[in-house]
């Protein structure tokens, strides 16, 4: 589970010793996020985002449980009860804004977390399972966020529910009955609202469960690091506590400043004004778009406007949208380069920064734009690149690329190639080991 040099939990207080014998929960915590978990010493700030994502999940669960105490999941009163929370419930406005913007913050954090995984190839052996579980968490997050957005029962809620469940109607033969079954009616109504509420309450705990598996799988090989070189000796690691608890604490402080700035000064900046209009099944808003975090996938959905052989355009769009995330499941086997970190992969890096990132930026922008030219054509080009990147470019690049030389170890990368300083840090004066990283 951990490196042989990990510190062992040794409770000094008799109560803790007694507890350790009966239920070694403090030992579990000590070995998971305490001094008993050695972590590479060179993690940069991109490695803060896992902890931040965990924080966001807790934030959403706490604010969500509070909101559920005041919200009524019935189509007749759902909108009014949301307004009741905003106007009448003590601090209700803050709870709801914290929850709505908390969802956005959660996605920001998770997207950076995924970006870190893509650039530093955190999905590669021996960490495939961590990546696969992460994709599962992301899919669960998308489902949860979608159902949560329906609950206020405003215009965007209603039409979002209609359009997203309409995706299932694209499936041949069973599509229409499936959509009716999912909604419990022929259009979104009370039955749909009730089940969305039930599932929106359930899924975060399912996510928490998969997060535990995600962290469990992480603690077997331990964290990756920016060099992509595996830990070799004790000198390559520092204990999680106090080193990374402190670093994560600092990151959390920065995150909270930004989050609170949005929460208190622009709480509606990421929402749609139309959702303050009660749901009306007789009239569609002129411009319906999902929340910003779904835009890239929405752009892929809309990029398919022509039938392909016997497959209708609508079905193609739906398949492509789901495939754009499902392709991540195959990533550990599509990228065959033994080198993990993008820092040492010159060709991969070019395609990453000048191919994948711009393509995703275009998809993001087009997903929020109206369904007209030039956005449709731009989404088509970007979708094409997106799939080509994973299915064609990555396998070819990993076959033909000549990676840059890797450092021998994390310690060598951090302290320089001086054998003495690297292997016997205690023998070296402090200022020398401080100066070395600047030179490397």
């Amino acid at each position, binding site marked *: 589970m951990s490196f042989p040099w990990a510190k062992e939990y040794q409770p000094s207080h008799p109560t803790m010793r007694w507890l350790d014998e009966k239920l070694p929960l403090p030992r579990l915590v000590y070995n998971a996020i305490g001094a008993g978990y050695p972590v590479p010493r060179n993690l940069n700030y991109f490695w803060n985002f896992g902890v931040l994502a965990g924080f966001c999940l807790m934030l959403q669960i706490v604010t969500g449980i509070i909101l559920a105490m005041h919200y009524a999941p019935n189509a007749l009163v759902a909108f009014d009860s949301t307004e009741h929370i905003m106007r009448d419930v003590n601090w209700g406005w803050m709870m709801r804004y914290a929850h709505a913007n908390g969802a956005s913050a959660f996605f920001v954090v998770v997207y950076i977390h995924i970006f870190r995984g893509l650039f530093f190839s955190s999905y590669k052996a021996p960490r495939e399972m961590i990546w696969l579980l992460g994709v599962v968490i992301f899919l669960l997050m998308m489902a949860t966020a979608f159902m949560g957005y329906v609950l206020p029962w405003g215009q965007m809620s209603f039409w979002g529910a209609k359009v997203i469940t309409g995706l299932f109607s694209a499936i041949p033969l069973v599509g229409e009955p499936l959509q009716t079954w999912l909604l*419990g009616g*022929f259009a979104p109504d009370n039955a749909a609202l009730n089940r969305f509420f039930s599932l929106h309450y359930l899924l975060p705990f399912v996510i928490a469960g998969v997060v535990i598996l995600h962290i469990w799988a992480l603690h077997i090989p331990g964290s990756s690091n920016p060099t992509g070189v595996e830990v070799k000796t004790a000198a390559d690691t520092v204990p999680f506590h106090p080193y990374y608890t402190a670093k994560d604490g600092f990151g959390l402080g920065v995150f909270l400043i930004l989050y609170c700035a949005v929460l208190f000064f622009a709480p509606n900046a990421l929402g749609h004004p139309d959702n303050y209009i009660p749901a009306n099944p007789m*009239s569609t808003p*002129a411009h319906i778009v999902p929340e910003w975090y779904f835009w890239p996938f929405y752009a892929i959905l*809309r990029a398919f406007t022509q039938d392909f052989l016997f497959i209708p*355009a609508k079905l193609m769009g739906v398949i492509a949208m789901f495939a754009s995330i499902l392709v991540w499941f195959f990533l550990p086997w599509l990228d065959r380069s033994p080198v993990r970190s993008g820092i040492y992969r010159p060709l991969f890096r070019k395609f990453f920064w000048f191919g994948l990132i711009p393509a995703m930026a275009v998809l993001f922008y087009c997903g929020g734009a109206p369904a007209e030219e030039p956005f449709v054509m731009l989404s088509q080009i970007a979708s094409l690149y997106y799939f080509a990147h994973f299915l064609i470019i990555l396998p070819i690049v990993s076959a033909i690329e000549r990676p840059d030389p890797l450092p021998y170890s994390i310690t060598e990368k951090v302290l320089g190639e001086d054998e003495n300083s690297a292997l016997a840090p205690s023998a070296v004066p402090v200022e020398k080991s401080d100066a070395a990283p600047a030179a490397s």
Partner: protein
Amino acid sequence: MAENAVTGTPEEMSGDGVRRRDFINIAAVSAAGVGGVAVLVPLISQMAPSADVLAASSTEVDISSIQPGQAVKAVFRKQPVFIKHLTAKEIAAADAVNVGSLRDPQSLDERVKEGHREWLITMGVCTHLGCVPLGAGEGENKGEYGGYFCPCHGSHYDTAGRIRKGPAPTNLEVPEYEFTSDTIVQIG
């Protein structure tokens, strides 16, 4: 006694080597399996439309006051239905189209009731992802083919409610309906 059951005495073996315990295992697991699958039926079908939702699936509309060129939105199954009184010009435009060239080939006559050619009754639900198309209300955008236009993803329907341009795969759905008199239509 238990020992005998595990090893299987000759008395317990039938000719093909099946022990009594094997039979009990298979029977028990089968019964539990059938029961488990049977429990899925209520668990799944509770999500299907309930009786009150199904009961609300018939609507009567008085069409006497709808002038040629006008349309009204009625509610059927909590969804809009467009009831449009076609003008002679709109009927002519619909008839002029070569049916074979359409994405979802249907003539106007296949989409209206005999003797009521001027009444086009369709669901007001875009067949792409379910938005309500524009064109039924006064002054709304009727799209490039003079029928309906869906603003969500840009599907254009012609004067017979047939898909002509955009991502929608099929024509606007014609619900079950009948003329109970010259001025009353019962939908559903």
